[in-house]
């Protein structure tokens, strides 16, 4: 089905199942520990051997000598895989650096060996007996130091142009009566999903089956096929449950490749989980940025010049963190400039983490907006409202498909009690605590992606949906069942959803908050095909047939849905594809974040007391699971504001705090009750579901709202994330 014209009235509009806050259908399995994740497929691979990964001990250089003899002789060891013995390997389409290093080493903890043994304990012990001598080379590990060497990255579809200009930014900025020119930094961050990257590989007659934890089943399948130089059709990827990803499991990683190599070498299934201390440096991360924001405005708060430049680094062949992308679309302003510069760094490879681009970009832009509002003596909510735009500011011919940013801001302000905020910082005390309120806008684009599905109707009237879509905690199982139930007019318990298997039609997968809208639209398309076939078999006109309560009705005729499949199962398959609507209309999601913090006047300890997000993201397919996506993103936003920081050892070139104790993420005690409001919105330009994404909108702006609240509480402005005690303790106001 090609989606080329705005959606009219369709069966989803009934909203009898879609749009309802239903419990997740995978809940009983997940809460009882009976949902099998990648490493737990004992039935599929009962005789699996265990692989343990050895990571490189230097950041850049060569292996001079790799001695695996002692490891091979260790008890229980079946094989030791290295680049020497693995056979020829290519680099997968999404990978920047080879997943198995040697002799050249490209980054710290790049995998250099896999030790396969009869038991986990034996594999781990033997891995400690691999002896490696390195020849370390000098590398670049410090973004600030490499900043002057950064160059404009090549334009591509995902990133757009590295430089954009509208009007005369420099002239307008110079002429503006009120100006802001500040630089902000965001650190390297780690996804730290709770389930480590994990895979089991099994070979049967040249066909590889991989039980793995991946967000994008097809990307993983293509990645392993390319890397092993084999036919894509000889790869079967299975990923029914994924213990979190956040961008860290978008494509083939070392666990899957090494499990496949280990299984090929031993003739046994092999299971590999990256051990936690390896993950931060072995896998991908969100790259650090340096961002300069310049704003020029008239005295009454109309932005006349808006400029945003960002510097980031990556491995040779890698890409930039696209931190300026929201600034091209979020606020009005006749004169505009954005620029991205990319330095070559020899740190582990950078890649997507929840809302790549916008998450760190909004961390800078939304502090800048707060600072500018203060210079203008304007309320920060009002300042944003004054600079709203209903069209793409770079191309006014192009309207937004829907853009209720002002409603998000006003609803949030009213709900949060924003009018009680004292704009003068450091004025509100609660015992030992300095209390402040902060806010930020939220923004993230909607991405249309082709997505396929197959639906089956059996003689009992049951519907089965098959798609290689994944559920990484996002609620895919549930919203797909809701879509099929609504389309076919059956109860939720009459729908079975099968996900995460590369033998099913290729879906959008989970990433970029594009999963829910596209995957359900693919299911919608397949269900339209199934409805037509059902109507044909029943002799009804498919155009006016109504599917509800297990019945199909047309005019005054009616038949049970199941009767259409009385002579055999009916199967329909289709995919959603998109025309030009996202080109003629800018499709984005909007929101606002409001935060109250308390800062201990003596110790500087920050406590987040209240949080509210207001989101406009098209139709909300399931308000319960969508709300969870948003509170989860808000939580990660608090982490970004206050603690998350992969610390770089700039001499030896690695992330020092590479485990879950030293890379701090929010815990229960850090997070208050969180409120989420969804605006009632349907976007007929986005898809037949009229939905957009929400899982990343929820993180965009949160960290800045926290930073702005800390400023309001204390009068201390911190422009370098995360806002830890050492960045402001000496600047706290004197305690009386």
């Amino acid at each position, binding site marked *: 089905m090609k989606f080329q014209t705005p959606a009219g009235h369709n069966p989803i509009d009934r909203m009898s199942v879609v749009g309802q806050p239903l419990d997740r259908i995978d*809940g009983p399995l997940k809460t009882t520990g009976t949902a099998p994740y990648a490493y737990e497929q004992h039935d599929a691979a009962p005789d699996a051997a265990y692989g343990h990964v050895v990571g490189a001990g230097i950041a850049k250089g060569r292996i001079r000598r790799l001695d695996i003899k002692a490891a091979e002789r260790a008890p229980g060891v079946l094989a030791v895989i290295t680049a020497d013995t693995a056979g020829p390997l290519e680099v997968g389409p999404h990978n920047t650096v080879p997943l198995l290093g040697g002799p050249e080493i490209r980054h710290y903890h790049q995998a250099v060996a896999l030790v396969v043994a009869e038991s986990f304990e034996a594999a781990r012990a033997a891995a400690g007996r691999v002896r490696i001598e390195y020849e370390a080379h000098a590398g670049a590990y410090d973004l600030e130091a490499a900043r002057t060497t950064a160059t404009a990255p090549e334009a591509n579809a995902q990133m757009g142009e590295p430089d954009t200009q509208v009007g005369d930014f420099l002239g307008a900025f110079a002429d503006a009566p009120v100006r802001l020119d500040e630089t902000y930094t965001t650190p390297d961050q780690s996804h730290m999903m709770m389930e480590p990257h994990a895979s089991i590989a099994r070979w049967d007659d040249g066909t590889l089956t991989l039980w793995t934890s991946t967000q994008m089943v097809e990307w993983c399948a293509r990645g392993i096929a390319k890397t092993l130089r084999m036919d894509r059709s000889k790869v079967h990827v299975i990923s029914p449950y994924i213990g979190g990803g956040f961008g860290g499991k978008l494509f083939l990683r070392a666990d899957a490749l090494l499990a496949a190599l280990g299984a090929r070498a031993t003739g046994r299934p092999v299971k590999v989980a990256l051990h936690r201390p390896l993950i931060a440096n072995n896998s991908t991360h969100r790259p650090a940025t340096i961002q300069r924001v310049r704003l020029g405005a008239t005295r009454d708060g109309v932005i006349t010049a808006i400029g945003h430049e960002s510097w980031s680094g990556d491995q040779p062949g890698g890409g930039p963190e696209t931190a300026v992308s929201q600034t091209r679309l979020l606020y009005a302003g006749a004169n505009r400039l954005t620029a991205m510069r990319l330095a070559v760094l020899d740190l582990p490879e950078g890649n997507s983490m929840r809302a790549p681009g916008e998450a760190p970009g909004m961390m800078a832009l939304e502090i800048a907006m707060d600072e500018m509002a203060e210079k203008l003596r304007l309320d920060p909510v009002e300042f944003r409202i004054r600079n709203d735009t209903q069209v793409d500011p770079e191309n006014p011919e192009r309207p937004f498909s829907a853009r209720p940013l002002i409603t998000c801001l006003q609803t949030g302000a009213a709900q949060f009690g924003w009018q009680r905020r004292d704009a003068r910082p450091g004025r509100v005390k609660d015992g030992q605590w300095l209390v402040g309120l902060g806010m930020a806008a939220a923004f993230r684009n909607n991405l249309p992606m082709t997505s396929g599905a197959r639906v089956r109707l059996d003689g009992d009237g049951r519907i089965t949906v098959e798609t290689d879509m994944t559920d990484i905690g996002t609620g895919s199982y549930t919203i797909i069942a809701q879509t099929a139930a609504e389309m076919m007019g059956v109860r939720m318990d009459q729908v079975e959803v099968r996900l995460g298997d590369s033998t099913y039609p290729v879906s959008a997968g989970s990433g970029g908050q594009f999963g829910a809208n596209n995957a359900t639209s693919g299911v919608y398309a397949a269900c339209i095909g199934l409805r037509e076939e059902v109507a044909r078999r029943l002799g009804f006109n498919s155009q006016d047939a109504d599917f509800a309560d297990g019945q199909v009705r047309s005019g005054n005729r009616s038949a049970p849905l199941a009767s259409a499949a009385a002579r055999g199962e009916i199967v329909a398959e289709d995919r959603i594809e998109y025309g030009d609507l996202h080109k003629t209309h800018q499709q984005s999601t909007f929101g606002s974040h409001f935060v109250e913090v308390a800062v201990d006047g003596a110790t500087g300890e920050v406590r987040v007391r209240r949080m509210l997000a207001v989101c406009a993201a098209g139709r909300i397919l399931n308000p319960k699971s969508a709300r969870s996506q948003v509170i989860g993103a808000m*939580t990660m936003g608090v982490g970004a504001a206050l603690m998350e920081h992969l610390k770089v050892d700039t001499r030896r070139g690695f992330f020092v705090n590479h485990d879950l104790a030293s890379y701090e993420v929010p815990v229960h005690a850090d997070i208050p009750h969180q409120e989420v409001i969804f605006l009632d919105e349907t976007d007929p330009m986005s898809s037949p579901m009229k939905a957009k994404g929400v899982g990343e909108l929820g993180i965009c702006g949160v960290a800045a709202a926290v930073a702005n609240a800390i400023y309001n509480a204390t009068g201390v402005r911190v422009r370098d994330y995360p806002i830890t005690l050492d960045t402001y303790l000496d600047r706290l106001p004197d305690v009386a």
Partner: protein
Amino acid sequence: MAGSATAGAQALAKGSEPAPSPPRSLEPVHSRVRLRVNGTDHDLEVDTRTSLLDALREHLHLTGTKKGCDHGQCGACTIMVDGQRINSCLTLAVMHEGDAITTIEGLGTPDKLHPMQAAFISHDGYQCGYCTPGQICSAVAVLEEIGQGIPSHVTADISAAPSLSADEIRERMSGNICRCGAYSNIIEAITEVAGRRA
């Protein structure tokens, strides 16, 4: 292909170069242990290096208990041993001879949910589900601990019975990381169960 790499200890021993036998200290030591898991006795023969977590997951195939870090940093492996919650990655299986162990599988099943499991579902106190068994085991134990009058870091008056406040629950649950960030919903689920009990 990777033929040379497949050479294990045996293959090397057959080679021309006589391979020295591994030093004694390398040979794994196995030991028998009886674990009473969810009311059923299991007799296991394990490598003494096997953590209680791996004994459950890899030997008994009770994979509801999760491995997030294997270092006591995340809480995904939380189980109850003789009524007390512990991180099962931080203890060896052979240290638990005869101990009564309760895992998530012992609390309830999809058809017969424990009230805490049901509350997690109705409050959507999870997303990816990987921290969830640990959260639920911890939550059950937290209510027991509060019931027993055990104070926490945030208990204002340690001579009085600790309250079932959200702050008490948050503090006590803080060893269980949820990277999906379901905390706000988890607290609501636990509070509901606590209220039902109180």
